[in-house]
């Protein structure tokens, strides 16, 4: 009987170990549905290129939403996705020729040290601006920093002979033939089976970034290369000519980007003496100041005397020199100059154009029978903050996690979230079951 007891015990232990086996769950499989993902081509601007922290640099390119999408496509039969990489050790270079930004301790004019974005090198890496197509092309990521919707169809968009400011050096380096090629012609030459078209931001953004002082908002009307609508039509006609399927993203409301929302309109904090002094100084304009937070003074040619206080719905741009605000009387005795301010009139122009672009993009998706992702709606939902897998994300500068140190472009986390928006729309349209990205694998702003 003892024997039986011990044998039973022994068997029980054996069973314990056996059932300690891990529970199994069936993994759903990635299916491409009605898609052919053999050749994916991404057409777009800096966002598509992976530009971040005010520069095009290697680590950013590796996590562009387009590159991330291609990796998910490869789980369902997608082909190679060639990116015009900058060297791994390059400090990168931006549209304003600076190196990429990093967070570092900066001491301001008042001697206060705080963590701030600063270029990691004195200047950007201009050595990247050499043609690399022959050696490394063709490229599937045709995301060109600075490109507007109207630029996509322009031949010779990368032709240096057009002179500085009239050609795009980022396209020059990656074009098949800088003198003759357009972004579209290079895309079409790859015979895409699938494409993403995420363009139009710069058609309003370049104007907005300069506070409306430079550049112009692209009109809806006009021929390809001039007007937004015809340029989009020509681009889609070209991309779909070979039967490719694809997805279009809307233009986000750029005025909700951190670049426009970080500096508070009422950042002029005064004590009673300062307030009285300013009130006296501006008495002829009838502007009064009080102790505490006051609206900044700005230049506005339309205002009486060319100056006024900014309103709560207007924006001081992230580009405004902080030391000038803090120590040189900017925004108080010296009204902030127009290139650092978006006024109500400018905002209205931007909003009207954005709305018109998005109406066009939505109808184009219908006409060309393409998937459609409302990036603008997603951005707006993020303003108040969203949570994904326990990560809180918002449009707040630095701590919001989604936007990089330039306040316009995305962090790796922001790119992954954007890519997931594309994947959801693609799956809905084409009956595919492409897996979304695990966003926890992508970080926000890097803290030293």
């Amino acid at each position, binding site marked *: 009987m003892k024997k039986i007891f011990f044998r*039973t015990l022994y068997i029980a232990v054996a069973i314990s170990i056996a*059932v300690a086996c891990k529970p199994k*769950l069936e993994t759903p499989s990635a299916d491409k549905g009605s898609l052919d993902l053999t050749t994916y081509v991404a057409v777009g601007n800096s966002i598509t290129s992976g530009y971040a922290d005010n520069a095009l640099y290697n680590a950013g390119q590796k996590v562009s939403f387009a590159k991330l999408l291609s990796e998910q496509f490869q789980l369902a039969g997608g082909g190679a996705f060639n990116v015009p990489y900058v060297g791994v050790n390059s400090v990168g270079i931006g549209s304003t020729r600076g190196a990429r930004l990093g967070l570092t301790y900066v001491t301001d004019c008042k001697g206060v040290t705080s963590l701030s974005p600063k270029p990691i090198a004195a200047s950007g890496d201009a050595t990247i601006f050499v043609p690399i197509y022959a050696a490394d092309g063709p490229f599937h990521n045709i995301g060109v920093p600075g490109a507007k919707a109207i630029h996509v169809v322009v031949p010779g968009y990368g032709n240096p002979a057009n002179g500085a400011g009239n050609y795009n050096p980022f396209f020059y380096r990656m074009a098949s033939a800088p003198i003759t090629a357009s972004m579209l012609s290079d895309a079409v030459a790859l015979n895409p089976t699938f494409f993403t078209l995420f363009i139009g931001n710069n058609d309003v953004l370049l104007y907005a970034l300069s506070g409306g002082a430079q550049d112009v908002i692209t009109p809806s009307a006009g021929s390809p290369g001039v007007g937004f609508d015809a340029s989009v039509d020509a681009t889609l006609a070209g991309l779909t000519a070979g039967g490719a399927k694809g997805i279009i993203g809307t233009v986000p409301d750029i005025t909700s980007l951190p670049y426009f929302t970080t500096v508070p309109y009422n950042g002029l904090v005064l004590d009673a003496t300062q307030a009285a002094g300013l009130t006296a100084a501006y008495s002829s304009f009838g502007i009064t100041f009080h102790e505490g937070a006051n609206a900044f003074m700005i230049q506005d040619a339309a205002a009486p005397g060319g100056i006024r206080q900014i309103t709560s719905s207007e924006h001081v741009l992230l580009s405004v020199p902080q030391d000038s605000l803090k120590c040189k009387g900017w925004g108080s005795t010296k009204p902030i100059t127009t290139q650092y301010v978006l006024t109500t009139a400018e905002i209205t122009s931007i909003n009207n154009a954005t709305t018109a672009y998005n109406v066009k993009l939505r109808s184009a998706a219908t006409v060309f029978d393409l998937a459609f992702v409302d990036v603008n709606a997603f951005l707006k939902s993020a303003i108040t903050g969203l949570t994904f897998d326990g990560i809180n994300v918002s449009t707040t500068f630095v701590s919001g996690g989604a936007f990089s140190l330039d306040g316009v472009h995305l962090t790796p986390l922001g790119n992954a979230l954007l890519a997931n928006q594309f994947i959801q729309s693609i799956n809905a349209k084409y009956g595919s079951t492409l897996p979304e990205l695990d966003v926890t694998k992508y970080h926000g702003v890097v803290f030293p």
Partner: protein
Amino acid sequence: MKKLLIILIFLSPLLVQAQGFQVNLQGQKQQSMGGTGTGTALDEASIFFNPGAVSHLEKNGVSVGISPTIANSTFESSESQSQARTNSPVSTPFTGYAVFGQEESKFKFGLGVYTPFGSTIKWEDEWKGRFLLTKLQLFSVFIQPTVSYKISDKIGIGAGFVYGIGKIDLRRDIPASDGTSDGSAKLTGNASGIGFNAGIYLKPIEKLSIGITYRSQVNMKVNNGNAEFTVPSTLSSTFPNGAFSSSLPLPQVISIGVGVTPIEKLLITADVNFIGWSAYKELSFDYENNTSKLEDTKSARNYKNTFAFRLGGQYSIKENFRVRAGIAYQLTPVRDGYVTPEVPDANKISYTAGIGYKFADKLTVDASFTFEDFAKRTDTNKEANFSATYKTYIAIPGISLTYNF
């Protein structure tokens, strides 16, 4: 005979109980019988199962037992089509009971030391839920001095004071990257709480016994926990190390159980537990040093009251050799929208079996085996917007030694 036993072990549903973060592993005989024990006076474990039944124990005795718990959960994200598993260490809930009383006295005194909850769940590195939880270790010991009084051969009452001590170790990652790795938080602390356990035992006729018990809620409070943060150096002032306080309620439980002896060698038992989980409304952490990023947190848990149904049996093959089996069905207290990786809970069925052998007049060995099968559960945690499908198995072999005198 051997064959029969083996078949019994394989086929008989026995039971186990772990519910929420509570484990119900307080006696090998009772574990073997689906976790029933409210309506019987089987052994010293009645100190836990029904203090009223202690007075009806025939002998004095001392008993020690252990139930190594092997839990495995699998996680799946349907969105990213990825999986993760736990690699939790084996946890070892234990019991120790002693019952004494003069032969002529109607009083019996007892002391119970047992583990009402105690588990470690550790998810694999880099898993998708790491910003919710990477590891949670909960361990507690309840010490319960008990008095039981035999009003008559048909009625016994008893009660015990419960003093609980415990510790918590909770870890999660923080989404603050230095470029190569994320930050992390480690919250450790000691907890304590008090409560009581009371019961009535009735034996109206020879073939039937009935028990009713009430175990009070025990609030395990962490008063001087230690919060440690590993974050990029520029954020260290934003995440200051320091003290925190928190608390975790262990719910009240009302149980009714019966034991029936239709034939001499067979005992059939059944229990119903009402578990007052609605007390677990939130998990809050109150940090001593708050900053803009480190605010006190209150995470809604919103558990609901729930039931467990248990059925068991014991058959005496010989005078000194008994086999047991049981089954239990436990409803989850966790509502949809609140499932967390701390406790990937779901409704579950427990199958239990066990054997008991009396080596000599005074020495008994009881062994049990429990297998818990959690229903597959898919849920999106509202607070973290974390979608998950979980499946969990728990296997618990256990053994105890009892010396009677």
